[in-house]
């Protein structure tokens, strides 16, 4: 029982971070129809930006987060403006190639400045543990869950209620009509990239804190693919269900079966889902008649 509880908390924490990372991916896909293979690198860059502000520049925690958000927003907007906008109307495969190129570029830039060794960063979230039903639960995982829940709720409310959120959904729904409503589609695209970069930043900071600030963060980010395939490429609630499922699956496999298998299992799920329900659990089924 104690192992089960333990694995569950670890799995949920991983899953919550994955949901944040996947949220950015879904945002970009929904608004701009771009499949962003650089989402994992956004996490990596986010984690290192925070490290730079917090450890290298010695800024206080709040300022370091603000610094990270500003830089992430800038990166998101610049990527959209300089790399994706010239690609509008191009073949989807070319656009995917461009995002793969972007992922390599971002990873290399991080390596260029910080090398490949893990950076030591003082713990931000409270450490220590609590005993629940005989299981030792680390407190920082609970904090991760709380923070992710708050951020995900905030994003959801933003999409459902706010003028800009609804404008984003309108663009995702029908670009032409959105333009004739006076909505600038370009600004919405830039906003989608900026928000995706910010959600990735938060995921990156959390990951850096509970694991380490190193290159593995990008590999963790690659897990957004099983998550979004499971939840549906264009579904925001799907990212939460998908993220938590993959997180739990990974931890349980690792704890009960084999840690090696745990690395593979998310991708096995990915293949199975593609075979059985290619639009994901919450994704919209699109039937194209030609």
């Amino acid at each position, binding site marked *: 029982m104690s192992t089960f509880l333990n694995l569950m908390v670890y799995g949920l924490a991983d899953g919550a971070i994955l949901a944040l990372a996947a949220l950015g991916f879904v945002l970009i896909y929904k608004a701009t129809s771009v499949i962003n293979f650089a989402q994992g690198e956004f996490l990596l860059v986010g984690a290192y930006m925070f490290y730079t502000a917090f450890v290298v520049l010695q800024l206080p925690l709040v300022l370091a987060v603000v610094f990270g958000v500003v830089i992430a927003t800038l990166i998101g907007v610049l990527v959209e403006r300089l790399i994706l906008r010239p690609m509008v109307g191009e073949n989807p495969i070319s656009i995917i190639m461009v995002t793969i190129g972007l992922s390599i570029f971002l990873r290399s830039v991080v390596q260029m400045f910080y090398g490949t060794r893990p950076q030591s960063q003082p713990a931000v979230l409270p450490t220590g543990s609590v005993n629940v039903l005989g299981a030792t639960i680390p407190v920082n995982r609970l904090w991760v869950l709380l923070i992710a829940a708050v951020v995900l709720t905030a994003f959801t409310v*933003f999409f459902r209620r*706010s*003028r800009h959120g*609804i404008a984003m*959904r309108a663009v995702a729904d029908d670009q032409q009509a959105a333009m*004739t409503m006076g909505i600038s589609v370009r600004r919405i695209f830039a906003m989608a990239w900026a928000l995706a970069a910010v959600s990735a930043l938060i995921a990156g900071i959390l990951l850096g804190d509970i694991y380490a600030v190193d290159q593995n963060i990008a590999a963790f980010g690659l897990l957004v693919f099983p998550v979004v395939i499971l939840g549906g490429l264009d579904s925001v609630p799907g990212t939460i269900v998908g993220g938590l499922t993959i997180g739990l699956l990974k931890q349980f496999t690792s704890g009960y079966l084999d840690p090696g298998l745990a690395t593979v299992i998310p991708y096995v799920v990915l293949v199975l889902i593609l075979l059985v329900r290619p639009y994901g659990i919450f994704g919209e089924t699109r039937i194209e008649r030609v």
Partner: protein
Amino acid sequence: MLTRAYQHSLNGSHLPSGRPLLEVDHISLFFGGVTALKDVAFTVTEGHVHAVIGPNGAGKSSLLNCISGLYHPQEGQIRLHTADAPHEDGTHGKVHTHALTSLPPHRIARLGVARSFQNIELFSHLTVLDNLMLGRHIHMRHSVLTSMLWFGPARRQEIAHRQLVEEVIDLLQLQAFRNKPVGSLAYGIQKRVELGRALCLQPALLLLDEPMAGMNAEEKEDMARYVLDVHELAGVSVVLIEHDMNVVMDISDRVSVLDFGKLIADGTPDEVKADPAVIEAYLGAEEEDDEVKEALRRQTRHVEEEHRG
């Protein structure tokens, strides 16, 4: 029924009635080797319902797309005149002229040009209310940051805009559908929602692309009534594309006729009805079709007699 007091004026134009509002100045539009529009020129007057009619493929929708900025004509100019709010002493505000051909669609929308589409282009995943509130987008002034906070100024503004949206809901009798996702509604209702969404912009010029397409006679009549209400109650100038000649003749002040991308007639409904070029475009050359027309006449007489009997 027209006595109900509405608080908000749905007409966004401050131009004095009778002044030129939109000038289509000899535009031509090509798609590769295909000529969609050739040297089309006419003027829409403030306060008019201006119909654009023509057979299938005459270029009516292309013309509308040029006005709303979705297409850019290779030749010619489209000019929109707007005026500032009237001064306190009652004199008219300063008039500005905008070259629409060099503006992107969202900037044209911000000048007060609203439209509907021939094949409904609503945000089908959003509710009727959200669709209509999106019509208020250009009038809302607050940044991404305050809109994230949701409370405070953003909230107060929403409430103010909601009042206008409720008046549009009232005018078009959409009360029962307020919170329904648009995709789930019947075709006729969706058409009405689209008209409503355009109205929520408080347009200076309303472009309607076949608002009655695909409707039965009764629905058409209702829609014509709504369009007239909008025009009479709100004083909005309307450019209306329609297939059905009869509907158009009843409700418009002025009619332009397109055929194969060319303007073949432009005038009052009576002038246009009598124009030989229009008759030919609609009915084909006289001698060839005499037999068809005779058959039609016989058919009509037959039906009338049956009704009487």
